[in-house]
């Protein structure tokens, strides 16, 4: 991900947008300006929670984040601005905010993937607020003109109208045999969302359960993560499966049965973000077929 043009004295280490650094929080992503960067020995940067009541600016509107356990994103929409979202994240709205539908393509595939078939669109003026149903952090990802990010299923909260939304197959899958049936597994979900800022800078809000950590991968650098821990990545980061087979003492702990670890391998260059809460991966049978994957026995 390239750096935005230098316009001010301060570059936010989390969203990499520039500003004057005079406010207590970054006006683009809400991250505190006056805290030390927390970097683990292994290179993960802890994304600080957006401070209670911090304001983020987009277009001619503002977004205020309030609360700490399940933060609320309260948007003061200007007449010229609009946002879109899935209906289940709406918390409250002024009656004067204009709500309508934003149809999605690929209805049947989205329904099979458990994704909303129809997005809602809110046009200003007025206040409208969003929240998710899990304790965690609200992440603001400001997108420069033309910049895109890939986001794991169900992490999306709301985006500004100038952020294009596409989705595609994740191409991360494997099958196992259950009797005569072949079972399909999608460790990061069937699909992955891609958001791209078109026409001007945009703002994407995500919600991640638990805590959030980010890091940059150099070209060719790999890291293995729990598939359910992925929040977002740069499109330049490739992903594939990695299976590990520990050598067990008994026949039922052999690779032919179900003793395996399923990892998501991410390969740079680019930035990735993970969450500390993830679904436990399924341990079911031996892998018959899969998308491109590496493996290791130990």
């Amino acid at each position, binding site marked *: 991900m390239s750096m935005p043009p230098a316009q001010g004295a301060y570059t936010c280490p989390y969203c990499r947008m520039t500003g004057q650094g005079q406010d207590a929080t970054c006006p683009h992503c809400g991250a505190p300006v006056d805290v030390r960067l927390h970097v683990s020995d292994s290179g993960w940067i802890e994304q600080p929670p957006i401070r*209670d*009541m911090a*304001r983020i600016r987009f277009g001619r509107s*503002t977004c*205020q984040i*309030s*609360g*700490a*356990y*399940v*933060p*609320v994103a*309260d948007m*003061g929409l200007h007449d010229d601005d609009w946002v879109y979202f899935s*209906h289940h994240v*709406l*918390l*409250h*709205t*002024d*009656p004067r905010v204009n*709500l*309508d*539908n934003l149809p999605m393509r690929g*209805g049947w595939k989205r*329904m099979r993937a458990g994704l*909303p*078939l*129809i997005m*809602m669109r809110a046009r200003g003026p007025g*206040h409208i*607020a969003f*929240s*998710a*149903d*899990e*304790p965690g952090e609200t992440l603001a990802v400001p997108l420069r003109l033309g910049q895109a990010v890939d986001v794991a299923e169900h992490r999306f909260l709301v985006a500004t109208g100038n952020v294009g939304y596409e989705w595609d197959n994740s191409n991360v899958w494997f099958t196992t045999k259950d009797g005569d049936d072949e079972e399909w597994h999608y460790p990061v979900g069937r699909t992955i969302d891609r958001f791209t800022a078109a026409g001007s800078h945009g703002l994407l809000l995500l919600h991640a359960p638990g805590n959030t950590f980010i890091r940059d991968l150099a070209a060719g650098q790999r890291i293995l993560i729990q598939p359910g821990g992925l929040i977002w990545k740069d499109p330049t980061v490739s992903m594939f499966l990695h299976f590990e087979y520990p050598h067990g003492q008994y026949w039922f702990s052999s690779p032919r049965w179900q003793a395996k670890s399923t990892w998501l391998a991410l390969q740079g260059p680019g930035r990735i973000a993970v969450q500390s809460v993830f679904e436990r991966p399924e341990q079911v049978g031996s892998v018959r077929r899969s998308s491109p994957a590496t493996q290791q026995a130990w």
Partner: protein
Amino acid sequence: MDRIQCQWCQAQNEMSQTNCATCGAPLDVKDKVSDSGWTEAPRLRDMTEFRFSNSTCQIEGEIVPVAELALAQGDSVFFEHHVMLWKEPQVPMSALNTGGGMKRTLGGMPHILSVAHGPGRVAFSRDAAGEVVVLPLHPSMELDVREHAFLAGTHSLTYSFVRIKGLVNVLHGGSGMYMDRFVTQAQPGLLLLHGYGNVFQKTLQPGEQILIEPGGFLYKDSTVSMNAVQQKIKTGLMSRGMYLAEMTGPGRVGIQSMYVHHGSE
């Protein structure tokens, strides 16, 4: 003598206090009010203690807070049995019959509320991350609360339950079939609620309206009317439009930022 007024419950406190003696709200931090007018419920400090009648309540923990009550002789609190975390063995217990019979069964509400009497200690908590909201009720107040959301009410409160009016509200409101109603007569009372996630409150002026997601509703003054209104927006292939709860003032409205579905309650 100078006093500090609590911005949450309006009680008067001595200047030396850092927490409100009536509701535990911090007095030495500024109220957090969003640009759209929602006030964040005060985050009660760990081990905050406040008094009601001759008893005390201490709030412990922050992610799923526990309300620990030290009940004095003559004081009592009522609650739904599933929120009781622990109690001292000698605390006398009794039952408060709610009436309503089959109606409450249909509404998924308990027929009997438990009552703990002083002297002794008893503690309450709920089953997901959130905040304890302390609502002191002045004489002649009526408050409607989302079903199953109250932790405990003091003995001076009169408990009843009201059906949410209108078939549309019941079927599509997402707030259940009934609301708990708490009324004070001549004596003040104290109500402890647990809201999932974070809790916010807004005071609506007469006629002022706001639309909220029904799962986010937590409490309201009985003067605030609530109606499920259908939006002309599709949310799926077969759905005909989503419903939002239209709240009309005057009065307070409280919301929670997380919805936890209790299919078994």
